[in-house]
């Protein structure tokens, strides 16, 4: 299997930031500041407001909002997805643990192509990172919606062919 050069992604559009998106992101920033800071004196709070606004300005300048609507549409279903992912991680961690600790290393390295073309950019990213997060499978390359995955066991590769995880992320997107 050869590594291939993918095409350049279409450059993200500026101006994709709607007022609603800006506002929600500002709320996230303010929350992050309040939780990190823990000091609620007027001076520090004022500086916090300044910091959040400055960050918002810079984020807008640096095309942060290219994928924001995609992300926002799935943010409600994300926690449920995380729970399923954690379950997956625990199962596959146990498998890898058994392999590492076995007196004789039994591995069947396998490469597999997974089709994520029906997902958007955000969905493909989540797919790739979820695959990497579960031990035993690693995303090596994404090219035009096709993910090249390296698996430690043939079993995992077979499971990836079933498209379960792609469907799950598709459900997250819709």
């Amino acid at each position, binding site marked *: 299997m*050869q*590594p*291939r*050069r993918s095409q350049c992604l279409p450059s993200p559009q500026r101006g994709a930031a709607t007022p609603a998106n800006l506002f929600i992101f500002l709320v996230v920033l303010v929350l992050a500041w309040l939780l*990190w800071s*823990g000091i609620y004196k007027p001076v520090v709070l004022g500086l916090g407001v300044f910091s959040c606004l400055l960050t918002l300005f810079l984020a807008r300048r640096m095309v942060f909002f290219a994928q924001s609507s995609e992300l926002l549409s799935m943010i409600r279903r994300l926690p449920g997805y995380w729970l399923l992912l954690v379950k997956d991680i625990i199962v596959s961690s146990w498998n890898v643990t058994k392999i590492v600790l076995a007196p004789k290393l039994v591995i069947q390295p396998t490469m597999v192509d997974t089709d994520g073309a029906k997902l958007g950019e955000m969905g493909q990213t989540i797919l790739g990172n979820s695959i990497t997060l579960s031990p035993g499978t690693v995303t090596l390359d994404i090219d035009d919606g096709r993910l090249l995955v390296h698996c430690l066991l043939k079993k995992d590769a077979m499971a990836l062919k079933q498209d379960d995880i792609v469907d799950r992320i598709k459900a997250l997107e819709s």
Partner: protein
Amino acid sequence: MIFAGVSCAILVTMVLAIARAIKGPTVYDRLLAVNMFGTKTALLLAVIAFLFGRADFLDLALAYALINLVGVLAVLEFFQNRIDANGDASGD
């Protein structure tokens, strides 16, 4: 005391990672070890903050969690540029 045990486990893993980083054999193995060392440092700092009861010093672990990625991405860009410059994209 549990935190002392956890930090010992992480320290031992750091030693194992350094062993891999020095042994190699390829450049990528060393990179892998360095990357693993970085995430282990973030873990260790969080655990030590608890062990010494300085939970307000978690900022340091947060800094590593946020910044560690930059070095690895720079490596990817470095390799990509070198391949572009040598003209043989993707091996053959």
